[in-house]
């Protein structure tokens, strides 16, 4: 068996949602991660959908993906016995990870100060909505609150719709990814010096980098970026730019952007399929031959030429749309990219599962679920480390390791 990057590292985590993916990343990299859960499990064990609609704490798919490769111990942290066991467990760890409300751990004798006093080398990472300090530190948190308060949601969606959140729990995931970095930095420092420390991660801060340029736009220009929907920042419909329906889904085209083959290459393809329509005739032919962002910008700067060219661009776009609509999304994507055209498939869960790149790379991993008498495929790890690969095993059943772990304490 290959060595693992985090061999010999023990993590005890008190997480439900915001910090859970951090623990999973550490577990996949080889740390022994023991998840301490309340009787009945936390909120995340009760989020649909479930495996084969079998509702229960051991079958929530949303829980699974954030808790692969861990162990589970059930302790009631509101009971003195539970607190004693939790403290013993935590003091035996190299890393404690928590996402409990600020103060919750300290009130139970499990806070950073108490544990660090007894074990100076301990790395203690707290992952919460708003961090350990500041006027909102005690605010109630849920992923969508982080997506909103980080400045990211305001950028997504049509202007007339409510702002959109990004799929899944991206504020939680962002916080966990930042927590994994902070935890490993602190671990390197602890292993070099013997000095542990408290790592404080705020989901609001963690996700805020995903504002892209909005922060700098306000800082430098005192303008707010707003959501611009399907059209993006371009005021008129441009050919081969945006979302296009296919026979079975959608593709996104960026053909006019720099970086790929230019627009005439798309028309060559359309001509081969007998779908170029009247684009080889004037007034379209001469427009098509020079079409890119730079020429369009020139047309648009002159109101007269803009007025002439806008309906022509709209017509060309309709011809492109009709062509794309004859293909499946995978065909448009793979053949378009084969011609160096900037085409992105709008992947669905199904086309991700069958994606020929991911399949050729054997990315999906088969995970054994002995307790369900089955095995199933899971998305693989985010990275491949040549000497110390990440390994993914099934998530623990609620309390599966309680006896084993508690026995090792006494």
């Amino acid at each position: 068996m290959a060595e693992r990057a985090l061999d010999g590292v023990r993590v005890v985590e008190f997480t439900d949602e915001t910090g859970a993916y951090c623990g999973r990343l550490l577990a996949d990299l080889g740390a022994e991660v023991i998840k301490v859960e309340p009787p009945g499990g936390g909120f995340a064990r009760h989020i649909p959908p479930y495996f084969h609609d079998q509702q229960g704490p051991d079958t929530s798919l949303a829980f699974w993906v954030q808790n692969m490769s861990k162990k589970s111990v059930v302790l009631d942290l509101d009971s003195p016995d539970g607190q004693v066991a939790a403290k013993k467990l935590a003091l035996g760890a190299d890393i404690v990870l928590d996402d409990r409300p600020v103060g919750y751990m300290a009130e139970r004798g499990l806070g950073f100060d108490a544990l660090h006093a007894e074990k100076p080398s301990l790395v203690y990472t707290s992952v919460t909505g708003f961090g350990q300090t500041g006027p909102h530190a005690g605010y109630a948190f849920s992923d969508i609150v982080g997506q909103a308060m980080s400045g990211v949601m305001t950028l997504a969606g049509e202007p007339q719709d409510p702002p959109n959140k990004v799929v899944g729990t991206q504020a939680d995931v962002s916080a966990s990814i930042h927590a994994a970095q902070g935890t490993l930095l602190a671990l390197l420092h602890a292993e070099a010096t013997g000095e542990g420390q408290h790592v404080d991660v705020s989901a609001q801060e963690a996700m805020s980098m995903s504002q892209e340029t909005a922060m700098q736009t306000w800082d430098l220009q005192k303008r707010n970026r707003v959501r611009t929907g399907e059209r993006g920042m371009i005021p008129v419909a441009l050919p081969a730019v945006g979302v296009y329906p296919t026979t079975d889904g959608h593709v996104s085209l960026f053909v006019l952007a720099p970086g790929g083959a230019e627009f005439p290459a798309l028309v060559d393809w359309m001509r081969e399929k007998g779908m170029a329509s009247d684009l080889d005739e004037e007034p379209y032919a001469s427009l098509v031959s020079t079409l890119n962002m730079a020429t369009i910008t020139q047309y648009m700067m002159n109101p007269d030429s803009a007025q002439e060219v806008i309906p022509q661009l709209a017509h060309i776009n309709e011809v492109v749309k009709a062509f794309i609509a004859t293909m499946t999304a995978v065909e448009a994507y793979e053949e378009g990219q084969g011609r160096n055209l900037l085409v992105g498939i709008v992947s669905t869960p199904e086309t991700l599962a069958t994606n020929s790149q991911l399949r050729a790379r054997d990315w999906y991993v088969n995970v054994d679920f002995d307790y369900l008498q089955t095995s199933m495929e899971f998305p693989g790890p985010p990275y491949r480390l040549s000497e110390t690969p990440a390994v993914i095993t099934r998530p623990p059943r609620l309390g599966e390791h309680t006896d084993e772990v508690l026995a090792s304490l006494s």
Partner: protein
Amino acid sequence: MARLPLEGIRVADFSWFGAGPIGAQTLATFGAEVVRVESETKLDSLRVVQPFALNEDGSYKTGYNVSGYFNNFNAGKLSIQLNLNTEKGQEIGMRIIEKSDIFMTNFTPRVIDKWNLHYDQLKAVNPRIIAAYAPMQGITGPHRDFLGFGAVLTPVTGISYLSGFPHRPPMGVGTNYPDYVINPGQTVTAILAALRHRNKTGEGQMIELPQLESVVNVLGSAVVDYLANGNIQTRNGNRHPAAAPHGAFRCADDPESVESPDRWVVIACRTDDQWKALCEALGKPEAAADQRFATLADRKANEDALDELVSSMTADRKAEEVMETLQAKGVPAGVVQNAQDMLDRDPHMKARQYYQYLDHPETGRAAYDGAPARLSATPGFHRSSAPTLGEHTMDVCERVVGLTTDEIADLLAEGVLV
């Protein structure tokens, strides 16, 4: 001041755009010396993309050094100009790698081929190197040469299909979302894990982070739901399977919110008690008794009516007031903030001083995103603002590569250090 965790570590940063440079910046924040290799002959386009700093008359500053987009991802680094399309440029690049602990790139596999930056080639001169590659689709596979950037990656990873409202097309999320936290963050995690392994064994290694794989790993249950159950999840707006109400609700306009006066608050009720608390806090206690909304199952079954009711409670109030009122009762709620809020109006962001303001010779004082995590004993911070293009060419050539002034002059004349 405590020694930072990465002091003494040198990073050869052969990356560009967002996903690569942000990760290298994090390493700089925690003490690494990061040498950003760039060239006017293959310019990182972010250097010439908005937002630009303004002149006093309100016009945009120009040149390679005034983009907030670029600068925010490159603080604390050294910039050397090196033309890797020349043989001598590649030689000098390899000498930087030889003197480094970590190599990072998000160039395409084709460029890796052309510039002789394969792991085997790096390892031959520096067996201890940790070499991190972050191509779009992977170094191998039938799609390895597919073209793309963040805007293409968003649909290809499934984010577009799964985000937004069901009655809208899969248009994406308004940004090149995977570039800023997911991919740079995962890259750094892998590098730090590899660094620990090297500390234990002396052994370097290669890291491959295909951006597609890294992002599909964080989509939540959607792909697993297909693999395990055959279900194809789709866009469900702002809703949540185990919470209701769950979404963004319109509040009173705020004319002081520049260019975006419409204000929204998000609310997530996970329990029946939170729902009752919301009804009372927002002045409609009778709604708590409405049988259509009594339990989570009821509220999910009548969610359109529920959303309408909640909207009627928030419509005339300030978003901040709704948030504070609900938070006082323990109900998760937050304002849909914009960048003006983040920098100037959110009292919490101000109190925690997340943004770091740095002087820059061309942009003037500007805000930078702070360190991704706060380490109590070894806090990360930007030691300098972003470098101007080639600002440290001389320093890196002399101190890291070991060239003499005469050699450097020759290389400048030959078009290698441009």
